[in-house]
Each structure stands twice: as C-alpha cells, then as structure tokens.
C-alpha cells in the first residue's frame, strides 16, 4: 500500500476542559474522496484546524505524505500542498474574485519588494501566469463571469466556489472542504458534486466535511464518523449509513437537543 496522503496518529485536541478530538486515527489514501461526518460540535472542523496548523494537537502526530507537519507554520503547510476552505466563508471580501484567487497562486511565487518596485521580467512573468491561472480556475469551478466582481457581492453559492478556486490556486495535493454545500440549492449541490469529482480526477485528494447526506453518499469513496471528538465508524458509505453506532449518535444528539 502506498503512503497515505494524510494520517492522523492518535491526535488529541483539548481546549481547556473540552476535548474536541480524542485519539483520532484517520488515514487517507491518494486520490480518495474522503468524507468526515458527525453531529454538530463533533470535532470535524477541529480536524481541519489541526491539519492546517491553526492548532497544534495536544497529543499525537499529523503526517502528510509520511512527514510530520504538526507544529509547522500555517503558510508552510499550505506550500507543502494542503489547502482548505472555511465553514464560515472567509474570502478577502473587498478584493475582486480574480485577486482572491491570485493571492492563492502567489503562494508559490517568489517576487519580493525589489522585483516588484523595479518591475523585473520574472515579476511580470509571475503576474501574468498568476492571472492566467486565476482565470482558468474561476472557469474550472464554474464562475468565469465573476472575475472582476468584488467577492462580497457574489451570491453565496458562488462565494463557496470562489473559496474552492482560491484554495486550488495554491496547487494542493490535499484539498479540505468544510461544508461546501451549506447554503446551496439542489442544482448547485449537483454541480458541486461534479466539481468535487473533477478536482479528484485532476489528481488531488479531497477531504470533505458535509452535513448533506445525499452529497456525502453520492461523492465519497470512504466515510468516517466523529461523535464527541471520537471516531465511531469508518468505511464505505453504505456501510457507515447502516452502522448502528452511527444511527445512535445522530439520534442521540437529536434527543439531547429536544
């Protein structure tokens, strides 16, 4: 078996008394679409935050392509090849869609102050390439007509796609999507499903957090279920769907909530 793209090795994440993740073990193979589901507050976003370096795990290790990345700076993790979107959209709201994506593309650019002030050739080349890449990606995610529009003026669904385009611009090997379908209508969800497949087919691995079960069941190769910070099930979508512990977790929460 090839090295997993991402491996969480007994990761525990505590916030004071709250245990957001308890000895989580996840292993994602290259080219997979892997879904992470679970009730609200189960610790799904915390997994993303631990993987992208927002938090350093209290215990355990995070391995990306076999190398340890916990404790690495956030922007370096991005450069290594992990990019994400956010549950609450965090675009650069007052920049144009194109500029948003160009910031992502800049992750691999070298131009500094000197290249820019003297307008040196490699700087111009990078600018041109970044702009082209941004255009292609806006086209790829299905919003080619929004280039010059200010991000915050875009409809919700398009903002989610723009976030995906911005993340893709960093050329990630692993893309993390945090509830990308939230706030989308059925037609948009359909398109999103196709987009996620297209991203995988372009040679990337996708880790997906999603509440929409039909999307999860339709698109993912494997599913893991978190409940109160603990992994309670993992397997093929239909296996997980019929797992009694999973059903209990979901029902249990709705009982608590009522």
């Amino acid at each position, binding site marked *: 078996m090839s090295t997993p793209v991402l491996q969480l090795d007994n990761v525990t994440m505590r916030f004071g008394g709250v245990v957001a993740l308890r000895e989580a073990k996840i292993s994602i193979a290259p080219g997979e679409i892997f879904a992470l589901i679970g009730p609200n507050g189960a610790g799904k976003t915390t997994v993303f935050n631990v993987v992208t370096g927002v938090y350093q795990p209290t215990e355990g290790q995070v391995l990306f392509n076999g190398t340890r990345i916990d404790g690495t700076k956030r922007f370096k993790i991005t450069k290594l090849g992990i990019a994400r979107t956010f549950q609450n959209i965090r675009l650069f709201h007052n920049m144009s869609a194109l500029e948003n994506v160009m910031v992502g593309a800049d992750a691999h650019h070298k131009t500094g*102050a000197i290249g820019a002030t003297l307008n040196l050739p490699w700087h111009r080349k990078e600018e041109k390439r970044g702009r082209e890449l941004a255009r292609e990606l806006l086209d790829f995610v299905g919003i080619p007509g929004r280039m010059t529009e200010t991000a915050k003026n875009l409809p919700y669904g398009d903002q989610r796609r723009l976030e995906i385009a911005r993340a893709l611009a960093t050329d990630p090997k692993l893309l993390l999507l945090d509830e990308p379908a939230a706030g989308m209508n059925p037609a948009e969800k359909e398109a999103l499903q196709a987009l996620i497949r297209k991203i995988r087919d372009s040679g990337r691995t996708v880790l997906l957090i999603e509440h929409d079960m039909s999307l999860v069941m339709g698109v993912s190769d494997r599913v893991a279920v978190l409940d109160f910070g603990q992994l309670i099930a993992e397997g093929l979508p239909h296996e997980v769907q019929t797992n009694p512990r999973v059903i209990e977790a979901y029902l249990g929460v709705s009982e608590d909530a009522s």
Partner: protein
Amino acid sequence: MKGNGVTGNANPLRRVGALVDGARDWWEHAKAWQRYAVYLGAVVFALILPAPAIGTFMSPGSDWTTVLIYPIGTYILLAVGLNVVVGQAGLLDLGFVAFFAMGGYSVAYFGTEYGWNYWATAVMGIAMAAVSGVILGAPTLRLRGDYLAIVTLGFGEIVRITANNTDEIGGARGITNVPHPTDIPGVVDFGLLPAPYYYLIVIAIVLVIIFSVRLQKSRVGRAWAAIREDEDAAELMGVPTFKFKLLAFAIGAMIGGLAGGLHAGRAVFIEPNTFPFILSATILAAVVLGGAGNLPGVILGAFVIAWLPERFREVNWLKDLLGRDPAEYRILLFGGVLVLMMALRPEGLLPSRRRKAELHEGTGGMGTMGAEVTGPDTDVSTEAAK
C-alpha cells in the same frame, strides 16, 4: 454612516464625492496614452508650482518655495511612506517620526563627523531607517492593533529621548552645519536658494510614488491587502504574514529615512525637537484625512495638513474680523478645519474604494480603529450596492 444621514444631500462635499467617483471610473478605464498625459500634466504642474504668482495666494506670509519643501513636500513624502504601513498593510504606527529622525541624524552625523559625501550619507540614512524599522518590527509585529500602536508610539519617543541624551550626536543642542547636498557640476548647485531642493524633493516624491504603486499592484500589495482583510485566512492561503508586515515596516521606514536625509541636507541644523511625537500624529492625520490606502488622497491630505497652517498665517479679512492677528490662532483654526473635514468625509477626502468598504465594515486596517468607529447602525449594504 451616521454622518451622511445627518448632512444628507445638502452636503456639497457629497457632490464632490460623486465627481471623485466619476474620475476614478474614468481612470480605471483610461487608455495608456491618457494616463501618461495625466502623469505628464502632474509633473508639469509640479514644475511650475513654485511660481511667485501662485505663491502670493498660497502662502502670502512666507516664501512659497520654502513652504513647498518644508512642510509640504516633506509631509507628502512622509505620508506616502506611512501610507505603506497604515494604508496598505493596515498596521497602526504612531512613531513614524522615528524613521524621519534616523534619516536626519544619519545625514547630519556622518556628514559632520566623517565628512562623507552627502549622497552617501543619504543612502546611509535610508539604510539606518530600514534597519531600525526591522529592529522595531521583529519583536512587535506579532502584536495586533492597539498594542502595536502603543509600542510604536514608545519607539518614537525612545529615539527622540536617546538623541537628546547622547552627546556624540549633539544631545539637546542637536547638530549644526550639516553639509548641503554635494553639487552635481554643470547640473545643479545646492546652496541657500530653495529651488534646487524643491526639485530634488519632487524627484524623490515621484520615485516613491512609482515604487509604491508598483508594490501595490504586485504580489506584495495583494499580500498586504489580504493581511488587512483577514490575517488568518491570508496565512492559511500561503501568505507569510509576518514577513510581509515586516517588509511594510521596512519600506515605510526607508521612505521616512529618505525624507529625514533630504530635510537635514537643506535645514543645516537638526535637533531632537525637530522630531516630536506631534509630527507622527500629524502625518497619520494626513494619511487618514486624505484616505488611507489611496495615494492621490494621501498626497492631498498631506498637502492640506501642511499648507493650511501656513495659509492661516496671513489672512487679512480674518485679521479685520477678529481685530487681532490670526497667526496666533492658526493652530486652532487648523484643528477646526480638520474636525469639519472628518465630519463631512469620514472615510477621508479621497478614500480608496476598498478601504472605504473596509472602514464601513469595521474590518481591516489601523489595528482595531476600524472596528471601533463602526457600530450596530453601520450600513454595509449601501456600500455593497455601489
């Protein structure tokens, strides 16, 4: 914003605002030759500006060319430098005068003690300012908002007080007989006449503007804008935020140092009190008043702030009205005008569209100042509709 509701459409500055928006739209779609025509026009304007005919109106009380060099030109240079830090990277710096002092003292010290060529001392001044910017920034740029403001304020004072207490650089007496810029044979002689210094500062301003615009349009400028809008998201998109903030500090400092070097070379005499805290505040006021982040606005702001107190020196109708010399009240008048302008155009005289929106939202820029000016009645939708 509330202010707009109160003043409503009767506010003549609103119509000015519409004109400005129109001009900006035109500029965004202007062809290359049209832009170059505007640049050329601006340069020609700068060249004929010292004309006595203009001077009699602009500064009846003092020599117009001298006023154009200091305070006007120097303030513009400083404001463009501070704009890199405050307007572009969104970091609140209350001690910018420290870099002006570094440049000034470098030129004065290396010129008088070691007899260095002026141009070498000026380069030294820029380098010293950059180094001090990095020294200040490295430990403090991890702080956010208010804390950064306080530390920079302290730094400005430390530099001044250190100069005051260091006998090697003249202590409280300062440094006299700072050499003038070395003449360039056959081109220009720097003596007591102000004109050559004026053209020198114009060249400096033009260069700094070109650099600043190029930075803004590059990866560097995008990184600054991203940091201003959402520092965490920027970092997660691969922007080394600390490095770029430090860069903004260093570049701002270099421009401040350049201004200091030019100033010392003309003024011949500098002392610690040439670099008071109030100058930092004044330059910050120029940036905010003009419209942080938007170069034409910042330049206009610096011009207004530098020029108004000079203009109020000699206002005959006011003299008749008050029955005494308004020169005594010029700072009061100046303050009144500033308050009035900020009340009528709270985003600045010529705000950049993006910064305007950010200020309305209370995100980005100037530490948490942006957040503090907004409240529940902030109307983001009007901005979004534009």
